[in-house]
């Protein structure tokens, strides 16, 4: 019994990590149909921000709190730069943005290798986040996963509030639903695109900070997570955040339950098969916009 509960908790926390990574992607993909393969490298940039900061600010606890908004800023700015320089020219060619951003991700990875060195680097987590909450002797919830769960929840809530209640959010939703009509109504779509990219990439940076609590920080850390994130967005459907939220937690739980009874490799393949099967049933994803277009 406790095994199931602790596996559920593991599944939920895997889902939370997936969600943090995929949230920014859902925004940029949904907004512009832009497939940003460099999203993983924005995550990497957020993680390296923690590393650089810890060189400057001693005291692991404080550095994490400062790192969160700083990583948001750094990754967000990188996203805007990418948008202005390259993606702006490619809106009519979504498949080409995939290849172009893959090229950018290669360049960013090599840059990281040249600047920080090829080996993984070390960050210190605040001691409180390396501990755990002991519910029973067998059921132990680790603090870092609880923190990430809280962070993911906060991000979803903040994003939803922003999209629903602020004027910027309204503009973003307008551009997502019907770009031409929004442009004709006087919304500066170019500027809205840039802001969306900023927020989406910034969220990637925050995900990077979260990942420093869980795993390695190195030039290739982005490539490990990018495919899973894309699958979440594809299956969740573009245009609504709740699709990604539900799919992220569903996949996380599925993966953790299958992992327990078989092996990790089988679980990964099972997740993929589940998504292909799901797309057979609903090819546009879980929740989609009801528009009048044919696509």
């Amino acid at each position: 019994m406790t095994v199931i509960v602790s596996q559920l908790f593991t599944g939920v926390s895997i889902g939370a990590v997936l969600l943090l990574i995929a949230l920014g992607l859902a925004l940029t993909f949904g907004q512009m149909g832009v497939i940003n393969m460099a999203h993983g490298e924005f995550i990497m940039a957020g993680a390296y921000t923690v590393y650089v900061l810890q060189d400057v600010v001693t005291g692991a606890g404080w550095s994490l709190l400062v790192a969160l908004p700083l990583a948001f800023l750094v990754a967000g700015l990188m996203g805007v730069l990418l948008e202005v320089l390259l993606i702006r020219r490619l809106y009519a060619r979504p498949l080409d943005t995939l290849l172009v951003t893959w090229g950018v991700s290669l360049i960013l990875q090599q840059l990281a290798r040249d600047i920080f060195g090829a080996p993984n680097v070390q960050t210190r987590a605040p001691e409180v986040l390396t501990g755990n909450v002991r519910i029973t002797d067998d059921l132990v919830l680790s603090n870092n996963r609880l923190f990430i769960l809280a962070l993911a929840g906060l991000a979803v809530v903040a994003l939803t509030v922003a999209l629903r209640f602020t004027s910027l959010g309204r503009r973003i939703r307008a551009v997502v639903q019907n770009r031409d009509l929004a442009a004709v109504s006087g919304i500066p779509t170019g500027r809205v695109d840039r802001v969306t990219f900023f927020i989406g990439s910034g969220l990637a940076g925050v995900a990077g900070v979260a990942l420093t609590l869980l795993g390695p920080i190195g030039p290739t850390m982005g490539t490990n997570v990018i495919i899973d994130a894309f699958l979440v967005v594809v299956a969740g459907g573009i245009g609504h955040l709740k699709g990604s939220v539900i799919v992220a937690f569903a996949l996380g739980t599925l993966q953790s339950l299958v992992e327990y009874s078989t092996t990790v490799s089988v679980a990964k393949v099972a997740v993929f098969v589940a998504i292909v099967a799901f797309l057979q049933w609903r090819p546009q994803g879980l929740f989609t916009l009801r528009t009048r277009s044919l696509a």
Partner: protein
Amino acid sequence: MIARFSWRAGAGFAAGAVLLFAVAPVALSDFRLSLLAKYLCLAMVAVGIGLAWGRGGLLTLGQGVFFGLGGYAMAMHMKLADAGPGQMPDFMQLYGQLDALPWWWRPFASPWFALPATVLLPMLVAFLLGSLVFRRRVRGAYFAILSQALAAAMAILLIGAQGTTGGTNGLTDFEGFFGYDLDDPVNQRMVYFVVAGALLLLLAIARQLIRSRYGELLVAVRDSEERVRFLGYDPANVKLVAYVTAAGMAGLAGALFVPAVGIINPALIGIVPSIEFVIGVAVGGRATLLGPVLGAVAVAWAKTTLSEEFPAAWTYLQGLLFVLVVAFLPGGLASVAGLVRRRRRRPPPDPAPVSPAPAVPEEVPA
């Protein structure tokens, strides 16, 4: 649906044949010739991608799967042939702790099964996947990502089954190729000729497909799928044929890669090599016939040469190639000639405007 014969095409193929069969073996050392054989295998995959992506608009980022299926099929046969009738391959005796050959290995002992399987098996998988995916109108970006995930899943499966597939080591250490000793440099040269011949054959097939009515339908589906559907065709079938053909080509390439290079392993199958197949096509000119081939060979050559001199520089160059070529020169290098020609043909600037004209309107410049 047979394409009209053109003297230019025949001359082109003959020139290609002369280059590959007569000039290259003389001009290159044995080592470089075997490298060229490897590049030509990659070029064969590129021909398929040029068909599916350049002409069909299907960005398939999972060609590694089909390459791997063909490669492993050939490798399994060669391993069984090396071991002798009724014996298990050497790596299984080392790692497998198996008493007998697994049932799915046995058919590969016969060349009559293994050879067709290298092409038919990938085509079958492509047919199944394509039927599932295209009928539900999964397209564009979704299709690209799904194909990537498929490549990743297959790599994981292969690595996990170490006892029966060699795991991360892959299958290597081959002695003979259909009875010919692979150590003998003359036989290595023969393998090169087989590869070159296969490439020319695939190019002929691709040209046939491109110039036929099917080719026009494929381009139409790429450019405006809905309109094609309204005209009464089923775009899913059109795309399926292109996808299956590309898979078969990749399978053949994989099969020939094994005797040419001497190894097949999951690293040639995953996400990264699958995307690397695409870059050559993008650089050369995705919608042309020769563009993918030349692009693939050029990129592979650049990789070998650069990594000899500047290993870090190769990653930067690869990234830059992706960015610059795809963003600013989407037609690839093949389109440069066209661009230059178009610039030269631009009409001279307007003469000074005349006073309000009589009834005859002035000619609007092109």
